[in-house]
């Protein structure tokens, strides 16, 4: 479903930058690597023809959330007075647990037979709003907006100075 060369490049970028996201000591660099990871993932979505999802991913994640993370890191840097770094603890134990999880997931994925990829009957970009607003997905959609409102209030209440 994707051009193999492009797929190779995307995969390579994802591998490298997700490792950097986790392993870089400087949190600023780590969050920028996260931005690259999210960006490349968005291109996977676009390659799956979920164009709206892909652009939304970049718009909200890369344009919103990562900028927020950068803002917080810069603010913390202002307080501390030097680049914000983060070390690691219990590296061996964490590595073991995550390696076990990865091996388990790999075993599950490789031992499962997946059906062939099917074509879309309609065009996803045009079908999405109808699906979201006119079928049973409208309820989770509304609940989500309530959740966002609650998060907004919660954030203000927690972070407010007395």
């Amino acid at each position, binding site marked *: 479903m994707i051009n193999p060369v492009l797929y190779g490049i995307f995969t390579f970028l994802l591998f490298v930058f997700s490792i950097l996201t986790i392993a870089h000591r400087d949190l600023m660099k780590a969050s920028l690597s996260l931005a690259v990871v999210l960006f490349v993932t968005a291109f*996977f979505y676009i390659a799956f023809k979920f164009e709206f999802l892909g652009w939304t991913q970049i718009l909200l994640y890369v344009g919103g959330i990562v900028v927020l993370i950068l803002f917080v890191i810069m603010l913390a840097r202002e307080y501390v007075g030097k680049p914000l770094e983060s070390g690691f603890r219990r590296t061996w134990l964490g590595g073991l*647990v995550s390696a076990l999880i990865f091996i388990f997931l790999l075993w599950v994925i490789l031992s499962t037979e997946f059906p062939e990829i099917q074509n879309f009957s309609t065009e996803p970009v045009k079908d999405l709003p109808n699906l979201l607003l006119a079928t049973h997905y409208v309820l989770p959609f509304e609940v989500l907006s309530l959740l966002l409102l609650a998060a907004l209030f919660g954030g203000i209440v927690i*972070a407010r100075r007395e």
Partner: protein
Amino acid sequence: MGVKAILILSAFMFSLGVFGILTRRSALGILIALELIFNAANLNFAAFGRMFGKVEGSIFPLFGIAITVCEVVLGFAIIFYLYRVRKTTKADEIDILKG
């Protein structure tokens, strides 16, 4: 280049995220690792949606993105509050329940 390759990729991202959560000292680093896990899950949803040829595959990642927004906002608010109270953002130094 089927679904399997993408699933393996996202499994890799997921376990890296778990590694980050387990080992990072700073609470900010843990939140960043959490983003990676969310992203891996969203990628899986989209890949399965593509596999079955269903547009629904792109709805769950959209919900996932919105939930991540909430998570980030509240997480940072809590980190800021902790910083004001305890003067640290290191997760392993915040181990006292009572102020």
